[in-house]
């Protein structure tokens, strides 16, 4: 039986959390299919990474080249396509990240392998590969069936397969595949998105606001509340798009990931893109008018009401308690 491949993702010298999630997923699949999991590590001087991954996979295939140091979809694609061709895996797992989004569909098209992005779950049986993925902004899930193929490409949504300790002893295999000089795409640098005066990742209490805040001027009320409970204000992407808060306050897949002791989500519906950045918080409280809002699936405590009614009341109660 052909193997499962899982792409190791790293950035700026560190492995990314998603890598371990992919390994968890890959191990489960390998177990079900009675096959092995191979972690594919493209990088440069990646000894440490391989060590970290040792228990996670049956095999680690290492491609070492200076050009693999930073992600470049062109050179990654070129190398990975070679690996897939030679390894002929049944499934190649890639994280549904900015890397994966660029890489997976391109590989699929290049190699004529069916690919699916942003999968929450994977089933593989005689009927072939099926995945669960979200549609309609998270309001529905779809079970998607792949056309029959010897190999599949899948990107996995972060957070769906919690990272687990492995008990494997990976065989580390060095590949002699080298990166070709990229013709079209040149990585220049990483840049921190606009830096403001507040570092939301370091705060113990974060108050997140979403579209439900309705108007820019309501931000003042939230700022005041956050200040009262010693927290900082963060937000969802639409709030940044509307320029009500700077980019460095955005929590979510394209923003920052926060893990405060307390996260209060105000008027946030709970789209995956946002929850990805805050689900690690110790306690999550959500206030939303819509009882069906997905945020209540992430929160520990919820209030179904108008946040403009709850917030002032909450402010008063907390003031009372503090005295």
């Amino acid at each position, binding site marked *: 039986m052909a193997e499962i491949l899982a792409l190791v993702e790293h950035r700026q010298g560190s492995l990314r959390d998603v890598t371990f999630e992919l390994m968890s997923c890959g191990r489960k699949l390998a177990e079900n299919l009675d096959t092995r999991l191979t972690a594919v590590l493209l990088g440069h001087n990646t000894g440490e990474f391989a060590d970290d991954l040792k228990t996670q996979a049956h095999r680690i295939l290492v491609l070492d080249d200076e050009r693999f140091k930073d992600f470049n979809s062109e050179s990654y694609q070129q190398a990975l396509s070679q690996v897939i061709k030679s390894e002929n895996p049944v499934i190649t797992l890639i994280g549904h990240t900015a890397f994966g*989004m660029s890489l997976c569909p391109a590989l699929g*098209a290049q190699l004529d392998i069916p690919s699916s992005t942003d999968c929450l779950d994977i089933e593989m049986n005689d009927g072939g590969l099926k995945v669960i993925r*979200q549609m309609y902004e998270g309001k529905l899930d779809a079970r998607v069936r792949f056309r029959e193929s010897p190999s599949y490409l899948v990107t996995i949504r972060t957070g769906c397969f919690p990272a687990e300790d492995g008990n494997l002893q990976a065989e580390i295999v060095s590949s002699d595949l080298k990166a070709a000089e990229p013709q079209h795409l*040149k990585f220049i640098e990483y840049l921190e998105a606009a830096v403001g005066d507040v570092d939301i990742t370091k705060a113990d209490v974060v108050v997140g606001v979403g579209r439900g805040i309705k108007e820019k001027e309501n931000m003042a009320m939230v700022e005041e509340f956050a200040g009262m409970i010693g927290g900082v204000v963060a937000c969802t992407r639409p709030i940044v798009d509307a320029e009500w808060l700077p980019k460095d306050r955005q929590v979510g897949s394209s923003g920052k990931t926060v893990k405060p002791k307390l996260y209060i989500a105000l008027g946030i519906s709970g789209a995956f893109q946002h929850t990805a950045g805050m689900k690690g918080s110790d306690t999550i409280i959500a206030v939303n008018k819509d009882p069906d809002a997905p945020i209540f699936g*992430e929160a*520990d*405590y919820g209030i179904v009401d*108008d946040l403009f009614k709850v917030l002032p009341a*909450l402010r008063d109660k907390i003031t009372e308690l503090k005295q």
Partner: protein
Amino acid sequence: MNIVVCIKRVPQTADAQVRVDSSGKDIEKERLTFDLNESDAYALEQAVLFKEQSGGTITAVSVGHPDTEDTLRMVLAKGADTAIRIKAEDFDELDGYKTAQILKTVIEKAEFDMIFTGCMATDDGYYQVGVNLAQLLGIPHATLVSSIEIGDGAARIKRELEGGLLEHDEISLPALFSVQTGINVPRYASLIAIRKAAKKEIAAVGQDDIDKDALVLNTQIEELFVPPVTKRAEIFSGTPEEVSGKLADMLNEKGLI
């Protein structure tokens, strides 16, 4: 700079009740509003900004059903010069890859320096069509683009990575950019443009022009369902005063305030 923009007409589901229809594979569409996909609006605006900067033409392409013409007309009003509708009704079930193949057959005939797409469609959320298309056309691509500067034969772009980090790249043209929301501020259409757009011809391309049998469908929706509730928050109920009281007490107990 000749630019192709790929757009999609999608149901606006953010505030709507979405229900699975009787086939179990699609949603009930009658009560939904359809409009231009959110990130496509930014893709279009980016194209128009470049056209204003350095001339050229913008061709908008969409694979869609006849009412997509309304959306294409909006796109024409907001700055596209020509619009092509690829008749979705001619091609049975579609997925991201098949859509990309169809788009390729049309776009490869056009002269272009850049292709813009939105980074994802809010209905199926594939994040795929743009990259597939770039690959099929054999041009480089960049996803989640949040800034573009055009230089000589190449573009400097910033991509939005996780954790608030940006990736700065240089990419040679022609290339495809799938843009992230917030990259610009989409414009309104002027009444003059609207009047002109209302009169423009929208080209329709269908199975006569595209070899249907050569298309590959990778995935099929087997079933749509409401996501199972995995975790459920403990909901406080009562008046705002009551729920705030409960919450404040809980926070206090946990030492969070």
